[in-house]
């Protein structure tokens, strides 16, 4: 009998677990197909489709997956490739939300800059799928692949603005360093594979449960390199060097999305690998995360102090926020992770809102992103200045905003784990953060823009998309600041299942 005749056993396909991802990918492919057949002149249609795709995926995940997932333990599908549990569904919903915000923001940006190629939305959808798969991945290969999909899309999106050398430079730098790190991470995965014999995260946990290696060098090195790969993605110090240049060069809507999406995916994977897979080695990887958290918070804040470009300052502030989230994960407990999840949600809204404003103020060709361009903004555009001030205070963690509750929850997670040093350093970093946000506020309110006539003549036009984004993000930041109970419950349930 020829080889072909032998029946290949049917693959285990349980599509119900990955419906949201399929919807997102489907929409992406649909857009690519439509572009191939007939380009509409106004990319608004594509934006609409993309937004609908995201919304549909989000709603399906919330309505269908969330109830059944949060009660029982994780259900594994595709022969262990994917784990659908409360945690992953939470991240899926969050990525859909981030996706919708990114689409709304991008629409007006692309038209204004004359880059209206709808592939932007397709890539956005693919990257969101990457984030979702990364959260669901129960196999190291899946983590790697999802990370690569996400990264490739982000490389392209960073280099999207062909007319600005800075954007291309940003894309190139991100790609070079990204490829370099993915190679290192892959090397780590090979060591883990070599050391434990399996690539499946759940199996990893069982492996450590069954037998104790007297010589764990190989597994340690593997674990370390994987952590390095993910640390690069969340831009934790010392792997943060790419972030400031890419945040400054890349288009504002992309940065708004990237800052959130990359962190969501990386932290999800980090948590799943370390907390679920290598929980036996907790005593080893906890100091690693401690180091990353402390370095990121302090170095991020210090560098942000001396910046003269707003987007670059935002980059460093996002590095220090990565440090705060890392505190939650470093607590290696359910409370810590639920705190980190809550922080991620609030951070997504805050950074999206902040960059929406920066984009509006930046006007065409993002020419006005220097501190000096923000001089006396309150006199010129009071509403925009007020909204940006609100976001800056939220990022700084002033009470009444979700930023404060996020920091508080993360600190409480750390307190649960007894890490007082982290809380101490965290509060110090928060104070330094206050200082560099204050510098910008001082410029906006207390300086006048008399010697900058060019600032005055063009009024910053806020298009429909960014307006909606601003409304949604401000509302979310205020609501989560005053009544965070709802989201805290969700985050708790998400982590409770593990």
């Amino acid at each position, binding site marked *: 009998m020829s080889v072909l005749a032998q029946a290949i056993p049917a693959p285990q396909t349980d599509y119900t677990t990955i419906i949201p991802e399929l919807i997102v990918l489907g929409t992406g492919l649909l857009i690519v197909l439509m572009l191939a057949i007939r380009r509409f002149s106004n990319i608004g249609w594509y934006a609409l489709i993309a937004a609908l795709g995201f919304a549909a995926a989000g709603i399906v995940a919330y309505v269908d997956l969330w109830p059944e997932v949060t009660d029982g333990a994780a259900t594994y599908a595709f022969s262990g490739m994917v784990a659908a549990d409360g945690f992953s569904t939470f991240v899926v919903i969050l990525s859909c939300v981030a996706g919708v915000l990114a689409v709304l923001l991008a629409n007006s940006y692309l038209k204004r800059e004359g880059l209206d190629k709808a592939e932007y939305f397709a890539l956005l959808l693919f990257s969101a799928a990457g984030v979702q798969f990364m959260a669901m991945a129960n196999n190291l290969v899946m983590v790697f692949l999802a990370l690569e999909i996400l990264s490739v899309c982000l490389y392209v999106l960073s280099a999207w603005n062909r007319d600005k050398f800075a954007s291309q430079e940003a894309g190139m730098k991100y790609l070079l360093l990204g490829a370099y790190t993915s190679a290192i991470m892959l090397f780590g995965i090979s060591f883990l594979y070599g050391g434990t014999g399996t690539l499946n995260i759940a199996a990893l946990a069982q492996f450590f449960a069954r037998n104790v290696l007297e010589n764990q060098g190989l597994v340690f090195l593997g674990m370390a390199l994987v952590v390095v790969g993910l640390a690069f993605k969340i831009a934790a110090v010392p792997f943060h060097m790419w972030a400031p240049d890419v945040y400054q060069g890349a288009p504002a809507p992309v940065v708004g999305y990237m800052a959130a999406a990359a962190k969501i995916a990386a932290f999800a994977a980090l948590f799943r690998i370390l907390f679920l897979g290598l929980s036996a080695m907790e005593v080893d990887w906890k100091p690693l995360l401690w180091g990353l958290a402390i370095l990121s918070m302090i170095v991020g804040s210090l560098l942000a102090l001396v910046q003269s470009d707003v987007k670059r300052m935002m980059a460093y502030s996002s590095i220090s926020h990565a440090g705060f989230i890392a505190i939650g994960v470093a607590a290696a407990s359910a409370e810590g992770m639920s705190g980190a999840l809550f922080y991620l949600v609030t951070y997504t809204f805050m950074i999206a809102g902040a960059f929406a404003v920066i984009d509006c103020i930046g006007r065409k060709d993002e020419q006005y992103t220097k501190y000096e361009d923000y001089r006396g903004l309150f006199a010129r555009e009071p509403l925009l200045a007020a909204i940006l001030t609100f976001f800056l205070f939220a990022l700084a963690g*002033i009470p009444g905003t979700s930023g404060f*509750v996020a920091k508080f929850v993360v600190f409480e997670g750390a307190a649960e784990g007894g890490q007082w040093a982290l809380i*101490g350093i965290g509060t110090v970093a928060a104070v330094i953060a206050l200082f560099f946000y*204050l510098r910008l506020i001082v410029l906006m*309110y207390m300086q006048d823009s008399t010697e900058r006539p060019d600032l005055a003549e063009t009024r910053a036009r806020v298009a429909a998309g960014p307006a909606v984004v601003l409304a949604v993000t401000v509302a979310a930041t205020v609501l989560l600041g005053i009544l965070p109970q709802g989201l805290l419950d969700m985050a708790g349930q998400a982590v409770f299942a593990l």
Partner: protein
Amino acid sequence: MTLAAASSDMPFVTLLVFIPIVGAVLIGLLVPSRRGDLAHVLGVGVSLLNLAIVIWLLVAFDADSAKFQFVERSSWIPELGIGYLMGVDGVSLFLLALTGFLFPLMLLGSYHIRRRLKHFTVLVLFLEGVQMGVFGATDLFLFFIFWELTLVPVYFLIGYWGGPDRIRAAVKFFIFTALGSAFLLAAIVATGFLADGPVSFNINEIIKTDFPLWTQRILFWGFTIGFLFKVPVVPFHSWLPDAHTEAPTAGSADLAGVLLKIGVFGLIRFSIPLFPRAAVEAVPILIALGVVGIVYAALVAMRQDDAKRLIAYTSISHMGFVVMGLFALTTTGVQGSIFQMLAHGLTTAGLFFLVGFFYDRRHSHEIAAFGGGVRTVMPVYAGVFLFMAFASAGLPGLTNFVGEALTLFGTFVGHRWFAIVAATGVILAGIYMLWLYQRLFNGELTVEENRGLKDLNARELAVIVPIAVLVLALGIYPKWVLERIEPSVDRIVTEVERKTEGTDQEYVQPEQTSPGGIEVETAPAPSEAEHDEAEDEALSGTGGEVSP
């Protein structure tokens, strides 16, 4: 009284907090920014309404109960053990009253502000609401939220409407207090978590935990350093003179009148009751800090050549009395420190308003701008200024004297030499006040521009006269106030004494042989103790259950 009975469950604190905030939001949204004066009038109206409620609260307050009254309890974030708990007791009653009393005057006093009057009013009203919240909150988390929120409006008040070097002053103010609140946040998270039972930030729950000594020390110093930034005590004080010199009149009045009290209030409400043993241990250091503050600030005040900066230093000196009295941990001392806070709030706010009136005319509060002899041109102004100067110097018959006497007598019992050194503050106060008065008002008129100055007009008098009347009234008849403060203070002090009985602190409480036969209530009788526990139980509202 029927009125008191009817309003025993009135949510006073929530009203006091949210009327100004809602007013601020409404004015902010509805009134166009061109119509600054309309916004200003509405603002005064809202704050007067708030004052009315404060007065109602004062009347409805049951004078001889030591426990929290008008308690409001509802669950807010049960997940983290945080509840929306508000309550008023003897300690916070008169601070709320002071805030309610000062804010309408502040708005009235800042009539001259031209730039963005609407935003100014909105910020001031928001500040009033938040400061009421600080005094009313009995949940650590809620307290911290209001504590931080006070930063933002004051920052903008100083930063936007301030004097020439306002930016540096505003940033310095913000960073100092933020640094303080960094300590505070870390301590609050730790306390909430380390207290026995489920994670909870309700102080009635936490007060039951007897923390181990070392944790108690760390937590105590976490809270205290956070608060000392705000008081300010000498090493942490360098933000105050700048903030005062650059702040607009309303800003300075608020800074002196209410903002400094938040730090001390925190000490009385949280640091001492929650960590009694650490508090008793730290008594010598803190009293020393207070006394150093008194003498040091008084000496430095003499060499200031800006009237506002001088008054700022005097308020540091007065707050030194408050800290000293507080950490004497005797009923007299603590009661004296609360009364001194009230007195200092009135007199220093009055002085700032007065300097503000001159600033409106001459746009400078340098002593050289006065140049002496102003008394000949503005006699009424000089007279009122002299009255306030005497009040600030602690002349008997006016409020400050009662405050200073109580703190001194309270501290002398346990710490003789500290009280004696502090008493020299009385001499220094007399010297710098009258010397300032001579440089401003006596002698011939040297500065030509002052010749044509008009004396105080009706509006300005409407601002300063109520303060003067209160300063005199509280000096002559402080009983009405002291009576209400005493039960709560007594409870705190006896609580601390009971909890630190074990340790042999050199903590001296004078024998209470007051002839009047008024038996000072020692630890509440056992039967009443059970009652207390039940009361606290009902009051605490543990995190989980949602109650009305």
